Structure formats: structure tokens, C-alpha cells
């Protein structure tokens, strides 16, 4: 009742209902892989919530500070204010360690969700026209997330993160011509400078998050404007989206996912220790820890630094040091390739049409081959970043592992890429529905060179010819109109996501969604929409409440009567007898 009146009052002033009607009816495709982006979004929300709490306790300064607190080994020792405040936060602030560890875990999950989301978009071709812009925004957000992960990791000024920061500084300094200047510009001096922690703090809590929030809003705005892609299927065309509605289905599901993300993150933050900076000790220029591994999302860079051979050369007397290639060139090329991929692929396939139906990964063997090879390459680098730990576990010399990884990082991507390419081709050309159904003949055929890439799996521009048994049914329902799509052959019925205010609107929507499909007006409502259980429950409670308030009103009325009568003559015993049966009536 109150919600209803509030909604009406707002609508009278802002005229929101035309927009809200469409927004609530927005259709989301029902496929788990569409939740990966939401996973990233909710991890980001968790990062902001926990991060804001941390800022109240973190002291972004490299000034000397004496730590005094309950962590005995460091009690009374002088460290940087940043480090002392993080140890205090972890040991002496209630729930501080929980929030700090949850924040750290959330960053790991955030990056993982982004990478999975990126892989889904890549392998299904969701970056194609008209969605190139959102691809570019997404890749930019990945770089920002990496940057923010690294600054956050470095701010506590512990020994491990100090080593990481020193390595990154060395990588930046390796850039020809401008490297030393860039490093000095970023750090405000030679490493370790007094300005670097405050600068990383501002970057970490203000600059990058603000840009991320802006880009996320843009990303989602474009998504809503362009609507979702969907996998091909019965009743699904380039001109519609089939699935469940935002209200109520995806509102509930999305909130459930948010709660899941928070549940998992808090469980990890509470139970799984991460980045125990008090054990690493404060950063000191002459100290190092072993083993030293970074967070997983920068481990590929660390692995590349380990694997790249000691090759460096001079140009006209100037040095190009070894970290330049694995540190700067590799990352630069990787992100350049990501940014350019949609345009490179369009150049190759000469496909300039709009695409709202997704590819199955097998539809583009080259794409899946390149994607799998790239993922393998980076996965080998991530594992190589732990070569010293592996060497200790396996009891083999670390340099043997180093040579093995140098071979693997080149050979394995070629192998997996080729396997993915051939499997995709075999699946596409043969009759097999899944991997298990592939025959040897399919695989042999896949090895042969192909003619031009076939277009048969692409949706033609013109609407498909009318299939028998396919039709649109429209019907009036009081003032409004509804429609639905029916495919007799497949026994499929899809209901329009919203009611139309006129027949024209219903016809227009149906024509857009299913061009060329016959429309028939069917008499009367084919199936009256029954009230949901919530509404039934609300109605029941409403009835109970109405009965209750009637009872209360009656009692109040009686009382007033009685008082009035008492003012006149003394009370009447009959009234009590009257009120009693009413009390037991409803329910």
C-alpha cells in the first residue's frame, strides 16, 4: 500500500513509469556464463565496502612510527607509519584483520572474474559489432584493476610488497629514453622515496576507483542500451532476447549472487590467511624474503622476468636492459592485441554486420586456437613464477626447471592452440554434437586445408522464411494488449516481456522480434495470469489485516460509546457479550 502510493507520488512528479515499465521487463538470457561479469561487479562492490573501512585505519605515510600493540615481536620497534598502521589494524582493531583479508581476497576474485568474463566474451564473439566499444572499455578496466591491485598490494610497506615495488620500478626504469624519468615521476624520487606511499594511496583509493566507477557505469549503460547477446536456439533470433525478466526473476537472482559473493569472500577472509605482513616484516632496502611470489594476477609478469634469458644490448651506447622485454614489451603487446582483436578479426572475416547471436566457440577455429594458445602461454608464466617453490617441493635444481619452463612456454601454447583449432574444426565440419562423439574421420578431415571460411552458420540479413507452425498470437486484456510467440513444431511458447498499451505497440514489438512471422489475434485471454504466491500471501495477510483493523475500529467505537454512555448513565453489560464473538471471528 505504502510502496504503491510512494511509487505513484514519484511517478506523478518525475514521470518514471514509461522508462521503469521497460526497465523492469528487460530480459536477461538464462545462461550461467552471463553471470561472470556480475561476479566481477559484486567483487568490486565488496572491494569498495571493505576498502572504505580500511581507509579509516591506514596511515599512508612513510614517516617513522613506533608500533605499540599486541603483536609482541614488533612491539616497540620503529617502522614506517604505513606498516605500523597495517599491523595495528590486523592485531589491535576488532574485525580489522577480517576486513583486510576479505579486501585482499576480493581483489583476487575480482581479477579472476574479469579474466573469466573476458574469456567468455572472447570465445563467443560477443565483442563483434555493435559491441566493440564495450570490449575496449572492458579491457581498459582490466588494466585499471591490475594497477589498483598492485598499488594496494604495495601500500602496506612490508618486505614482500617492497620487493615487488622495487621490481616494478626496475621494469619501468628499463624503458628506453624515458624510463628513469617515468619512475621518478611516479615515485617522486629514487626508490624508496618518502612520497611513494601517499601517492599510491591516492591512486589506489581515489583516482583508479573513480575511473573504474565511471567506466562500469558506462559499461552497464551501453549493455542496457544494446541489450544482451544470446546463444542461438529455438525462438532466438538476431532481433530478440529470450530469457527471464529483470523483475522479479533477475532481481532476486542477482541479489542472491551478490550475497554468495559476500559469503564466499567473508569465509575466505575469516578462515584463509592472506598477506600476513607482520610475518614478512617491514621493508628494508637490504632485506629480502624467500620464496617471494606476487599475487596471481601479476605472476605472469614475474614468471616472464624469470624465464627471459639474460639478453640485453646497447643502441648507440645506450642500454636496453633485459627486464624491458618480459616486463614492458610483453605486457604492452598483450594489451595491444586485446584492444585490437575485434578490429583485426573484422579485417580478416570482412564481416561488418551486427551480431546479437553469439558464436559457439567451435564456430571460429582460428579464434579459439589463438585464445587457447594465449591462455596457455600466460598460465605457464604464472606457474613459472613459482619455480623456486616447485624446485623445493620436487627436489630438483631450480635451473633445470627454468630450462624446462623456457621450452614449455614456447612449445605448450603452440600445442594446445593447434589441438583447440583442430578440435573446433572437426566439431564444426563433422556431425558430432560434442567432444565425445568425435570420430577419427572427423579429426582427419579437420587436418585438411579449408576453402574460404564458410558463412553458413551466420544469420542471414533477411528474415528467415516463415516456418510452418510458427506464429505470433496477440490478444487484448482489458485496456492493454499482450502477445506471445508459439512454435508448434518445437512446442515452444515465449511470452512478450511486457504488456503493450495498444495493439499497435504489441504488433510493432512482435514484428521487431520475429520479422516475417505471421501474426494472429486470438480471442480472449488464452490463460489468465494467476496471482503469484507472494501476492496470494499478501492478499491473505491483507484480508487478515483488514479484518483486524475492522475489529480494532469496532472496539474503539464501542469504547467511545461506552464512555459516552458512562457519562450519561452507568455501563451496559450487554456490550461485553457483543464484543466477545467478534474477537474470535477472523483467521
Amino acid at each position, binding site marked *: 500500500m505504502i510502496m504503491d502510493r510512494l511509487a505513484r507520488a514519484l511517478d506523478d512528479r518525475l514521470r518514471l513509469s514509461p522508462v521503469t515499465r521497460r526497465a523492469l521487463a528487460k530480459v536477461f538470457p538464462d545462461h550461467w556464463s552471463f553471470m561472470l561479469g556480475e561476479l566481477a561487479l559484486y567483487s568490486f562492490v565488496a572491494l569498495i565496502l571493505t576498502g572504505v573501512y580500511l581507509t579509516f585505519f591506514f596511515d599512508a605515510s612513510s614517516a617513522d612510527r613506533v608500533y605499540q600493540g599486541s603483536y609482541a615481536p614488533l612491539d616497540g620497534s620503529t617502522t614506517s607509519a604505513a606498516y605500523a598502521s597495517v599491523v595495528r589494524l590486523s592485531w589491535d582493531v576488532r574485525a580489522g584483520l577480517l576486513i583486510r583479508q576479505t579486501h585482499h581476497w576480493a581483489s583476487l576474485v575480482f581479477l579472476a572474474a574479469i579474466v573469466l568474463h573476458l574469456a567468455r566474451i572472447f570465445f563467443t564473439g560477443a565483442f563483434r559489432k555493435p559491441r566493440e566499444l564495450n570490449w575496449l572499455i572492458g579491457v581498459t578496466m582490466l588494466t585499471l584493476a591490475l594497477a589498483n591491485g598492485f598499488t594496494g598490494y604495495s601500500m602496506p610497506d612490508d618486505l614482500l610488497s617492497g620487493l615487488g615495488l622495487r621490481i616494478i620500478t626496475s621494469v619501468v626504469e628499463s624503458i628506453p629514453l624515458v624510463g628513469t624519468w617515468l619512475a621518478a*615521476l611516479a615515485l617522486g624520487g629514487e626508490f624508496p622515496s618518502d612520497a611513494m606511499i601517499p601517492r599510491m594511496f591516492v591512486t589506489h583509493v581515489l583516482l583508479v576507483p573513480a575511473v573504474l566507477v565511471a567506466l562500469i557505469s558506462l559499461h552497464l549503460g551501453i549493455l542496457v542500451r544494446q541489450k544482451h547477446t544470446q546463444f542461438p536456439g529455438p525462438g532466438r533470433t538476431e532481433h530478440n532476447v529470450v530469457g*527471464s525478466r529483470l523483475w522479479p526473476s533477475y532481481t532476486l537472482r542477482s541479489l542472491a549472487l551478490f550475497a554468495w559473493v559476500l559469503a564466499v569472500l567473508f569465509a575466505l577472509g575469516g578462515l584463509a590467511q592472506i598477506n600476513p605482513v607482520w610475518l614478512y616484516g617491514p621493508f628494508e632496502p637490504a632485506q629480502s624474503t624467500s620464496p617471494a611470489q606476487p599475487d596471481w594476477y601479476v605472476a605472469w609478469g614475474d614468471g616472464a622476468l624469470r624465464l627471459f634469458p639474460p639478453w640485453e644490448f646497447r643502441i648507440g651506447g645506450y642500454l636496453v636492459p633485459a627486464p624491458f622485454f618480459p616486463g614492458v614489451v610483453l605486457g604492452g603487446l598483450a594489451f595491444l592485441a586485446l584492444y585490437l582483436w575485434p578490429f583485426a578479426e573484422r579485417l580478416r572475416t570482412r564481416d561488418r554486420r551486427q551480431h546479437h547471436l553469439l558464436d559457439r566457440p567451435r564456430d571460429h577455429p582460428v579464434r579459439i586456437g589463438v585464445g587457447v594458445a594465449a591462455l596457455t602461454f600466460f598460465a605457464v608464466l604464472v606457474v613459472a613464477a613459482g619455480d623456486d617453490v616447485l624446485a623445493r617441493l620436487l627436489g630438483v635444481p631450480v635451473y633445470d626447471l627454468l630450462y624446462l619452463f623456457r621450452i614449455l612456454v614456447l612449445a605448450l601454447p603452440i600445442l594446445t592452440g593447434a589441438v583447440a583449432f583442430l578440435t573446433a574444426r572437426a566439431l564444426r565440419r563433422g556431425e558430432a554434437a560434442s567432444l565425445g562423439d568425435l570420430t577419427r574421420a572427423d579429426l582427419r578431415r579437420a587436418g585438411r586445408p579449408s576453402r574460404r571460411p564458410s558463412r553458413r552458420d551466420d544469420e542471414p540479413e533477411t528474415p528467415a522464411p516463415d516456418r510452418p507452425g510458427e506464429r505470433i498470437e496477440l490478444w487484448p486484456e482489458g485496456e492493454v494488449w499482450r502477445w506471445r510467440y508459439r512454435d508448434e513444431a518445437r512446442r515452444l511458447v515465449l511470452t*512478450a516481456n511486457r504488456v503493450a498499451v495498444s495493439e499497435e505497440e504489441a504488433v510493432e514489438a512482435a514484428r521487431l522480434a520475429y520479422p516475417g512471422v505471421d501474426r494472429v489475434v486470438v480471442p480472449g485471454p488464452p490463460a489468465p495470469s494467476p496471482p503469484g504466491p507472494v501476492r496470494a500471501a499478501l492478499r491473505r495477510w491483507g484480508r487478515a489485516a483488514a479484518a483486524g483493523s475492522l475489529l480494532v475500529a469496532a472496539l474503539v467505537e464501542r469504547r467511545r460509546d461506552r464512555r459516552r454512555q458512562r457519562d450519561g448513565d452507568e455501563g451496559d453489560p450487554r456490550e461485553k457479550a457483543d464484543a466477545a464473538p467478534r474477537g474470535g471471528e477472523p483467521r
Partner: protein
Amino acid sequence: MRRPTPSPAEESASRRIVGAFLVSAAGAVGFAVTYGLGGDTRWEGVCLAVAFAGLAVGLAVWARRLVPVGGYVEEHEGFTPPPAEQAMTAAEFAAPDSPTRRYGLLAALGFALTALGVAALFPLRSLLPWDRVRPPRALKDTPWGAGVRLVDGTGRPLRPDDVPAETMVAVFPEGDPDAGDAPAFAVRLDPERFSRPPAGGHLGGLVVWSMLCTHAGCPVRLYLKGTGRVLCPCHQSSFDLLAGARAVAGPAARPLPGLPIEVGPDGFLRATGDFTAPPGAGFWSRP
């Protein structure tokens, strides 16, 4: 399609949802109690996880059982704009009085904005250190110099006898122990075994090298006894101290710079100059 009266399945779903939300509330209360009792990271985490998991289960069951799932279709209006509308929008920009047609004015505006943009870059200079030392120069210079005494981690000056055989002693320039590029280490080696003399010379087998790896600047703290090699824990670069601290394995390409030392008149070790090369990772103008 659902019947007006809730089916048994819906009733049981409703009961499960209520149960899940009650569990969630219990988790929240548990968190508050744990916090109030003094806080225990593990229990706080578990309680919050239970609270949110309860919410998640309740909402998920609600979404799955009590609201319609799937079976809706929304039309997609496509992104080819109507030609007439596109032409009208284009006409707005091409009108005679449209600002986009005043090329001269636009050029002047562009000039002004470019000037502003370039001027706005100048304050970035303030982000650089203001001590007037150009960054490449700063990387080459260290606090070491002729007459600077070697001290250990506690600030105590070192005599030659303070460096035992088969161990590495971290040394720092007196008065500047926290400098990022100054850390060095002293070792005592057998001069007979030198296959190449140390770049900074030695005092009867006592040699001092920069501690920073020439690959990415990590301190090479791992001394492999007997082999005369040091190892960097970051990327496993290894240096052979008996061969002039040459890089022998891993990604480092250059030898560790040496520090020339002598025994001062007071009997303590002191440097006779800066490192033989800039310490740490390489950079463009490194000699």
C-alpha cells in the same frame, strides 16, 4: 502456470526461504556477539559468511521456485537508425549557422584549447623530486664515496676482522643506512681461487659488492656457501663471486658492481670511492 492457491511445492519453498533468512539473521547476531566478546577473525568471518549464505540461499530459492523463470522474449530494435532521422540529425550539424562549419573560429578554439592542455601538463613537473638531480644521475650516484666508513646493520663501524670467512655481512654507508641504492655486502674469500679479480679490488680476500641484483634490483641475500655464489631470491639470478661477481645463471646479465675499500687510519674499513658501476637494475643511460 500457477494456481491461485499455493501448491505444496510452493509452500515448502516458502518454508525453506524463511528458514534460510532465519539462519542469515542468526549469522548476523553471531557476528555481533563475536565482535562484542572481543572479536575472533575466524568466527567473525564464519558468522558473516553464514549470514550472507543464508540470504543467498533464500533469494536463490525464491528466484527459482516462486517467480517465473525463462520463457520471455524481448524485441531488439537493432542499431541501424531510420535514414530520415539520421539525415535530420546530420542536417542539424550541417546548417549554415552551425558552429561546426565555422572552420576559422574552430581552428582558433582548437589552438586555445591545445595551449591550455599543454600548459596544464607543466604542473606535472612538480611530481618529480625537487632536489635538482636528474633521475638518471640520481641512479648513478650513491651515498658511497671516498672516506665513507662501512657500518653493519646496527650502525657499528666494521674492522677487517669483523668479516668472518664463509658468510656475508651486510654493510651500509655510515650515516645513510636507509638509502635504497647503497646496500652492499662484504665477504672473505680465498684470493687463490679468484678466476677473475674483483672489480673493486680486495683486501687480502675481503671483497665488498653491491647487494642489489643487476636484473631487477632485489637484494641478493642468499649465499651458497663453498661455491662462492650468491643467489637472488626474486628471480634466481646467480653471481659467481670468485669470477668477479659475474652473472652465471638466471635472468641477470651484468656482474654486481664492486666497492673499492681500504683500511682507514682508525683501523675501520672505508670506501675509496663509489661503486664501480651504478648498482641495481639497468637503465637507458647506464654507462
